[in-house]
């Protein structure tokens, strides 16, 4: 095991510890001493996290004071920390630069407060979304996001990764329903923002900044969510089309009401296109919407079992491509043409009302860079591309945020410096002045 840091390209890095003997000669001893202090600080034994660049020591403190001690120790010794929950989204945004310690919140679990009569729930960040959902259901409530991997996804991980769920269309972005949070800064300070109220504009919303920041600003240790009414009924409406164009048009015309369905998706099936509209609401609302859809759509079929329940989280390398909903049919046409030309990858789930489509890569690992560069040809049409679980070559820190150079470098796009990126860097420095937290790439 090493503590000198494992860079993304697999090379060991030398990050001298506070002992002053962290060079080549005394490194092993300093590393061992550091690991012992790390264990003592966390009050937990170390394990190992396998990153693509190599193994790193991982610690999972049992309580907030242990987590604070770990951050304080690492910050004081110049060690770089990768925060994570159970690590299910590490492939979404790979760490940039070396990682010395992985800090997992998976043992910071438990419901802190559940107020069904007030529609709020608060939990420690290592609590799984499945446990949160089960607790909320006891009071007739439901949480968002609704994830296929809720059993393994933690609250903190889901919020940090900015992950939305199968209910995005009806509920909107999960960050809109985070009422408040407690965060650990890298000097070990515990801070809070927001509260446990459904409406509140007191102070700045730090909890909004950390949603989607991939742990690059602070460690989320607790969050409060707004609860919704648990749907009493669900139904799935299916319609088959010959092509995407009429399917997109129908989806946009009938899949977005004042109260939207939970999910509206399209996918290729048996030479045609399958439109699925999932309704989840009160019995009266589901019946009413279902009846209306049967009136408006060509030959719909209704199933009373939601397909969402059976879906699993996609773990293949995939590109999430977004555009405005009105351009969806055209985007899908371009994607299918492009994947045909590239000879690897195929169109996955299309969410027309959200303006989002998934392209799954199914070629040889070595071909993915060429495939990704090919997909970039969609960008001039206004499409935005984010990769998930994409095997990557080394990602160095100069590439990451605010790099001055722009253009193509070895097949990778270099992030252009913008006012927003420069501002994001200043915010990172404000909350983590020792640059202890490892930044993660935004998937660009």
């Amino acid at each position, binding site marked *: 095991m090493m503590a000198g840091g494992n860079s993304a390209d697999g090379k060991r890095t030398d990050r001298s510890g506070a002992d002053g003997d962290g060079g080549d000669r005394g490194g092993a001893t300093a590393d061992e001493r550091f690991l012992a202090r790390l264990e003592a600080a966390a009050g937990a034994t170390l394990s190992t996290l396998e990153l693509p660049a190599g193994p790193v020591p991982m610690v999972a403190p049992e309580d907030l004071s242990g987590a604070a001690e770990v951050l304080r120790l690492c910050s004081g010794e110049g060690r770089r920390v990768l925060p994570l929950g159970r690590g299910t989204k590490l492939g979404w945004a790979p760490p940039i630069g070396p990682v010395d310690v992985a800090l997992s919140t998976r043992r910071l679990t438990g419901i802190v407060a559940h107020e069904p009569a007030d529609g709020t729930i608060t939990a420690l960040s290592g609590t799984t979304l499945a446990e949160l959902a089960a607790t909320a259901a006891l009071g007739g409530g439901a949480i968002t996001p609704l994830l296929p991997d809720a059993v393994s996804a933690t609250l903190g991980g889901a919020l940090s990764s900015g992950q939305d769920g199968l209910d995005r269309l009806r509920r909107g972005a999960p960050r809109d329903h985070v009422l408040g949070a407690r965060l650990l800064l890298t000097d070990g300070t515990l801070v809070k923002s927001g509260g446990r109220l459904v409406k509140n*504009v007191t102070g700045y919303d730090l909890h909004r900044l950390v949603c989607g920041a991939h742990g690059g600003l602070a460690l989320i240790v607790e969050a409060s969510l707004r609860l919704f009414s648990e749907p009493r009924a669900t139904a799935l409406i299916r319609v088959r089309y010959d092509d995407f164009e009429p399917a997109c048009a129908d989806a946009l015309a009938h899949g977005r009401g004042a109260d939207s369905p939970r999910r509206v998706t399209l996918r290729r099936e048996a030479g045609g296109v399958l439109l699925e509209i999932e309704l989840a609401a009160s019995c009266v609302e589901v019946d009413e919407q279902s009846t209306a859809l049967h009136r408006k759509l060509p030959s719909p079929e209704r199933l009373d079992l939601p397909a969402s329940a059976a879906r699993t989280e996609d773990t293949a390398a995939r590109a999430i491509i977004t555009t405005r909903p009105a351009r969806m049919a055209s985007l899908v046409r371009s994607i299918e043409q492009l994947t045909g030309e590239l000879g690897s990858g195929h169109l996955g789930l299309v969410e027309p009302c959200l303006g989002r489509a998934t392209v799954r890569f199914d070629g040889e690992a070595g071909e993915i860079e060429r495939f990704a560069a090919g997909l970039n040809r969609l960008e001039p049409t206004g499409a935005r591309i984010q990769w998930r679980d994409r095997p990557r070559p080394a990602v160095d820190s100069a590439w990451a945020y605010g790099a001055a150079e722009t253009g193509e470098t070895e097949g990778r796009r270099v992030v252009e410096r913008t006012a927003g990126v420069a501002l994001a860097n200043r915010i990172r420095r*404000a909350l983590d002045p020792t640059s202890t937290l490892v930044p993660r790439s*935004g998937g660009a």
Partner: protein
Amino acid sequence: MREDLIGELRAIVGARGVIADATRLSAYESDGLALLSEQADLVVLPRDTDEAARVVRALHRAQVPVVARGAGTGLAGGARPVAGGVVISTARMRDLLELDPVDRFARVQAGVVNVDLDRAAAEHGLRYAPDPSSQAACTLGGNVANNSGGPHCFKHGATARHVLGLVAVLPDGEVLDLSEPTLEPDAEATGGLDLAGYLVGSEGTLGLVTEVTLRLVPRPEVVETLLAVFPTLDGACDSVSEMIAEHLEPSAIEILDRLTIEAVEASVFAAGYPTTAEAVLLLDLEGGRALVEDLSRQIEPIVARHGGFDLRRARSDAERAALWAGRKGAFGAMGRVAPDLYVADAVVPRTKLREVVAHTVEVCRELNLRLATVFHAGDGNLHPNICYDRRDADDVRRVLEAGDRILEKCIAVGGSLTGEHGVGLEKRDHLCQAFDQADLDAMGAVRRAFDPEGRWNPGKTLPVRACLELHAARPLRAGAAPR
């Protein structure tokens, strides 16, 4: 103010875009919180983002404090000028830049009035959902600054949920263009952070929002407005708590008390509220016909269980509009009762409505103040309105004491200091009741990342003094400020 700076600003925005004479400046001395006023040295009115950026760069070079202002309808002193500073008003930025009925968003300049966007959206069967009571006057830029709410935010959420993008001029004059509506923050434009979301509710302390991209939603198929009459305010509060506990979801749940009803009925906003009632509950139900009927059926017995009677349904759009005009005109109608109105704003858990409302009544009775209560009951967002005369020093003292005691009670039951009006200057020092010094230090650090020199809306939103000093100056009452 230096003449050369005034000349430079005039060259950017034209002579009509700079106000420097004392008489005209007096119109900008305060916002809706008339208790706090200060004269700015200058008011500048740019017409677009480019002009605004050039203005901000000039003020940055001159190191002048800046206060952003929409329509000045805020109620916490957030738009009150600072001495020796410049107010940048968005009053000339009133263009609807784009309305896309297919992708359901609008891009507007910050000075567009809230209701004007809603009217434009209505032509396409859409609407802009956040509807503050001041929506006929308040601007969308101001709404963004305060993360404004309104009655229908109970179902649709406050402004933050409707902002899809924005353009802001940062304190150094750099333009942050995040106007394209995206599902998630664009990593290449924001480093992956939700910068647009963070600017919402930042009360003009992080920069000037010049354009906003806003989500529009379909107008509901059916809307039913219900008015329930209660013999007690407690009964109205309890019926709301039960509706929330039963997961019923009207789109708006509002309560008005007797004094408010009397004031409304004696004003041009007269809505037909029964003046003998101690409280009325105003509800909007939205959705398909069957859903609305089902909701109505479930609400009826809850109202009855808590003493409500005479549950009326608006029979026409005109009647519905009148009922809501009464509610939205309530603050204005209070002008008949007293020369000044202190509009408090706090949030409590919805299970504590009755307890806190009763406390508010008791505090005002003790201090011999007239209290009118009107509030967004569904969100637990209270607006105790206290009548006073700002020319009477003792009146002002008692009003401020009442405000303090009401806020302390809200915090003590797990509530917050403000639900939609913001912290501004009014509640700046109260923040130490809701947060620790460490919390505020972290917020301050991020604020400095936007505005390192602290020139934007200085002295607002965060306490200037340390919490320790503030606590020492005014010890908290027992039971306040739990963590």
